[in-house]
């Protein structure tokens, strides 16, 4: 389970999903600077690790954070860690751009 969280993009993705009730790959790709294809790959890894739950909604699949294996500490790590990743990325853009 922790292995699935080793990637900063996955943590950012998990944090983005945790901010809303449920999200689709298309919605997440519009929020994050990665392609829908890449989003789907990470969502699959997170779902396989039991961190995300998939549910079908019409023609789309919505993803929701699984509360169970994601203990309070881990969800804090994912949410707050994701915020720092965003802040540091913004700082990097500022000083390289």
């Amino acid at each position, binding site marked *: 389970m922790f292995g699935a969280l080793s990637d900063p993009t996955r943590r950012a993705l998990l944090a983005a999903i945790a901010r809303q009730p449920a999200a689709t790959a298309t919605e997440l790709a519009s929020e994050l600077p990665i392609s829908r294809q890449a989003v789907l790959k990470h969502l699959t890894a997170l779902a396989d690790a039991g961190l995300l739950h998939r549910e079908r909604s019409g023609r789309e699949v919505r993803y929701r954070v699984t509360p169970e294996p994601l203990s309070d500490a881990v969800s*804090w*790590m994912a949410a707050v*860690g994701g915020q*720092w990743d965003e802040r540091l990325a913004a700082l*990097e853009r500022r000083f*390289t751009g």
Partner: protein
Amino acid sequence: MTDWIASEPDRIERPTIERIERELLLQATREQVWNVVTSGGWLAETVELDLVPGGDANFRSRASVKTGWVEDASMPARLAFWWATAGEPATRVELTLEPAGDGVTRLRVVEARPLDVLDLVGTPLPRVGGRSFGPALAAA
């Protein structure tokens, strides 16, 4: 098992998941980085920091409002503060700025949850909204 917390596992002093560590090298002086990280638009959209031990700290964004206090501010090397959203336990944030040669600054960020900080600092938990905890802990 916990080495996913930081990009450099050998820098983790205490293997606990209640702690977030990040490091970044920036092509800027410490003063330039300090100015950005203590101004509005980075920690939150609006940032009010009284940069003295025990000084008030307010962070406002559309998504959240956090209040807290400054534990230590040593421009341009180190800023440590506590913050919390109303009703939630405060966490401690420490920003360290080190020269990394040739106009490069290494920024290190650590955010830790109270239990972890308790172990580190050995002091009682501060309560956000309380009056005297800030200077008391800062002086410890």
